């Protein structure tokens, strides 16, 4: 015979003001299995928990019902109280009479009380069918995989490695550094991007706990939290990194010139190249789509000049495997192509450029040695018009969201322009100035006051050519008039967008992504670093547009999450997982399809006892299962059981109301 204890909480006035708590306590007593029913002002407090512990012992209870707030708040607290009293913690049921009753039915005390009675009756009935469950232990491989070697991936890798946990850092391009390596100076302090980034890049390369795999991509991920197996494709670089000294003779002598993507195609690089002088690793790769030796079998100059014999034209892609316990996704961002802005003449006028092109020009190590020029004639511009929100906050042509960083980098560009060309003038067309961040508003003021940039609130409707100038026509909403600015150069602050490969990567990793292609976090406020898949975390712009401080903070948060995950030798997880009863399983595999966590696979078992013929049944990996119950609902033969939510428990609940 079950012996249930019911503990009803006032929650100060939160519950007691809207529910007749003493009546609820009396109502519970009418159920014959209930051996004790009491109330207390704050059940979660230490004395409250003490009441539960004492009652368990004194009344020899077999299960406990706490009628209080949401189990999300205090389920763990009360489970611990049960454990402390020597009871299996999963014999607890929480009746949520706060969020589900008192808070939502504040105008009708009678109805709220009745609903509380129902909820408690259900919890009591369910608890009677509760079974003793035990936490699941999962082994853990203490190595992290970081995908992407921009500032987010670099920071996450360094922080994890500093905790003496091995890290494999996979970077798609030949060098780590990412977008930040392309920047000249950074807001709001104007410190040189390269100066603060390159030491970290070097740290990555030399860190004993970091394995850096450049020019590679993750192509497969199997397994579950603590036990992932990743397949990594090392793209053929045609250069043997182990013998290459990075002397640069090959890149100097290579005769093939190709638009330089690192410099936004403003200048040219060679077909064998290192993306930039401070690249890590500082080893060249051959661009197979342009190398004449690989395309036509002619040339081979690089091989001739290489003293170490490191060039190998026969190199092929190689796939390697790594076992890891956790994954950090840090794939960064792309920029929106402003081509739809036909009324600006984008694509027709050379002197309309994007902000990242401007950034490369003003960079001291950039293609124009730090001086902005007009692409059409190479002259130094005097009047420069910056237009913000190109593609951002634009439902018609671009995307709906704010890209977050453009207000700040445009202010920075106005200041940098002034530094590089003293007699220049910056005009900035904007919709709003969003400068929320430490030192940000002051920085924008600096652009407005110190460099006397003209901020014009309004959209640009048209750009047309007049002689060799561009006429920028827009609205100045503050004076309510249309204005025209004669510009030598126009710079478009194009929107931040998710990398185009994000959706395919998300699918192969088994995490979700949003309609824009950004990776989805598990909870927008309380779990912004985790994905819904255990053991996979997000750092930087792969989740949403972010500036450098936010990116670094999130990357460090990822590292803390990984370290926490690896703190014990095994991972503990709730036992609320599904199991398959093979005898009932028909092998229809509907559960495989509906499982959002890819926790269900199939296995072959003998058709009958001792039979050699095989049949297919579903198999659930309890390490991956999150206990959502989708498989239970879809299973036609009722072969799946979800611990903690078994059929008898659910049926008891239904019967109780």
């Amino acid at each position, binding site marked *: 015979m079950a012996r249930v204890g019911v503990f009803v909480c006032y929650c100060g006035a939160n519950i007691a003001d809207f529910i007749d708590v003493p009546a609820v306590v009396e109502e519970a007593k009418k159920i014959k299995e209930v051996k004790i029913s009491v109330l207390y002002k704050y059940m979660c407090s230490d004395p409250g928990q003490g009441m539960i512990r004492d009652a368990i012992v004194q009344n020899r209870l077999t299960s406990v019902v706490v009628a209080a707030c949401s189990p999300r708040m205090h389920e763990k607290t009360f489970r611990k109280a049960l454990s402390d009293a020597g009871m299996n913690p999963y014999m607890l049921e929480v009746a949520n009479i706060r969020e589900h009753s008192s808070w939502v039915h504040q105008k009708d005390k009678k109805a709220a009380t009745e609903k509380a009675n129902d909820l408690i009756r259900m919890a009591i009935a369910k608890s009677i069918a509760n079974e003793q469950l035990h936490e699941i232990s999962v082994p853990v491989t203490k190595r992290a995989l970081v995908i992407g070697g921009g500032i987010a991936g670099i920071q996450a890798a360094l922080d994890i490695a500093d905790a003496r946990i091995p890290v494999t850092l996979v970077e798609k391009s030949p060098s780590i550094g990412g977008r930040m390596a392309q920047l000249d100076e950074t807001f709001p302090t104007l410190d040189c991007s390269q100066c603060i980034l390159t030491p970290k890049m070097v740290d990555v390369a030399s860190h004993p706990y970091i394995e850096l795999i450049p020019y590679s991509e993750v192509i497969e991920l199997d397994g579950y939290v603590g036990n992932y197996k990743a397949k990594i494709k090392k793209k053929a670089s045609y250069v043997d990194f182990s013998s290459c000294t990075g002397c640069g003779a090959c890149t100097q002598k290579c005769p*093939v*010139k*190709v638009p330089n993507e690192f410099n936004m195609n403003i200048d040219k690089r060679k077909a064998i190249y290192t993306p930039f002088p401070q690249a890590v690793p500082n080893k060249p790769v051959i661009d197979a789509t342009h190398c004449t030796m690989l395309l036509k079998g002619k040339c081979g100059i690089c091989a001739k000049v290489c003293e170490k014999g490191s060039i190998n034209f026969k190199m092929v892609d190689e796939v390697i495997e790594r076992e890891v316990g956790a994954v950090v996704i840090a794939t960064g961002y792309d920029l929106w192509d402003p081509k739809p802005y036909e009324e600006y003449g984008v694509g027709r006028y050379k002197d309309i450029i994007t902000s990242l092109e401007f950034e490369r020009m003003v960079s001291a190590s950039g293609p124009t040695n730090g001086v902005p020029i007009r692409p059409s004639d190479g002259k130094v511009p005097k009047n420069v018009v910056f237009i913000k929100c190109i593609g951002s906050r634009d439902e018609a042509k671009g995307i709906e969201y704010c890209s977050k960083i453009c207000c700040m980098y445009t202010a920075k560009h106005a200041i940098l322009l002034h530094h590089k060309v003293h007699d220049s003038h910056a005009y900035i067309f904007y919709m709003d100035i969003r400068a929320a961040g430490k030192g940000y508003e002051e920085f924008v003021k600096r652009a407005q006051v110190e460099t006397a940039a003209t901020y014009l609130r309004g959209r640009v409707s048209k750009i*047309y*050519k*007049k002689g060799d100038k561009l006429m920028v026509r827009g609205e100045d909403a503050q004076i309510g008039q249309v204005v025209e600015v004669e510009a030598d150069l126009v710079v478009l602050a194009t929107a931040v967008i998710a990398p185009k490969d994000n959706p395919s990567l998300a699918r192969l990793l088994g995490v979700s992504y949003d309609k824009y292609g950004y990776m989805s976090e598990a909870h927008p406020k309380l779990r912004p670093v985790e994905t819904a898949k255990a053991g996979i975390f997000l750092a930087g712009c792969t989740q949403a547009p972010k500036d450098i401080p936010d990116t670094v903070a999130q990357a460090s948060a990822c590292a803390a999450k990984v370290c926490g995950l690896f703190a014990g030798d095994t991972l503990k997880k709730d036992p609320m997982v599904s199991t398959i009863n093979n005898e009932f399983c028909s092998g229809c595999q509907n559960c495989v399809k509906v499982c959002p966590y890819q926790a269900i696979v199939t296995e072959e078992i003998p058709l009958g006892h001792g039979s050699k013929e095989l049949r297919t049944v579903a198999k659930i990996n309890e390490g991956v299962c999150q206990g959502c119950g989708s498989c239970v609902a879809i299973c036609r033969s009722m072969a799946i059981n979800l611990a903690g939510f078994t059929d008898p428990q659910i049926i008891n609940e239904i019967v109780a109301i």
Partner: protein
Amino acid sequence: MNKLTYFPGCSAHGTSEEFDHTLKLVMKTLDVQMEEIPDWNCCGATSAHVMTENLALALPMRNLVLAEKLENKTMGIACASCYSRMKGTKKHLDENPEQAKRINSTVIDEGEYQGTVEIKSMLQYCFEEIGLETIKSKVTKSLSGLKVACYYGCLLTRPKDVTQFDSPEYPMSMDLLMEALGAKAMEFDFKTECCGASFSISNTEVVESLTGKILEVAKESGAHLIVVACPLCQSNLDMRQPDIEKHSGKKLDIPVMYFTQLMALAFGYPEKELRLPKHIVPVEAALKHIGDPVPEPEKVKKTKKAVEAESEVE
């Protein structure tokens, strides 16, 4: 022979008679039989839709019902404003079948609206259904040497979800059509700017400032003349020029022609068929540029392989 339902609109029978006339000549050469909708009515223009929505829908709807009776696949519309009203109405009626039924049964006695006719501007019809290759094949007198600025106005390609034709901001169909005739279409930034439309009557100053800007930029582009596909654009650009010149003191003197006039010329019709005396700004001098020597275009020859096109071997 292709058959085309034709909606001329009121200007074609009046101020833009030269458009209507040359359009018919051109269509004859292109082997298209035009069937004008019998007993067509006003599209409602700018007046109806500022008065009442139902009237603004009912007027074009009656024309659509009449057009359906002719059983041709496409209806071609000469005037850009009529085109906008008719096509916008069709979209609205197709999306709101109940309202369509109500208007149909209340005020239109000519039959039941089906929504089966495809509506195209005459420019769109030439570009999409006849095609540049066919047009090119009919050219007997190339317009080579003539430089033109193609002006589309605001309604031919806008709004995009209604017109479903060409780019709303920088269309190229008329430019390509002119190049097919042998003329050179100049880069022209103001090709979709508003000319002031019917404010021509009520607020002439606005029209003069908007039109003045368009004419100025067209002139700067180096064009000998402006090509249009809309009667109201033509009359604003052509008729207001003397006043604009008087107020600004700048000489413009740039003729404004319909694309069909130039097509007729290229198809070998004599100049007198173009109805040139109807123009305010004289056209004859501009047309003398036909046959001017054309300088070799400075084209960088690209190699066939895309790979090589991008790279450059020292």
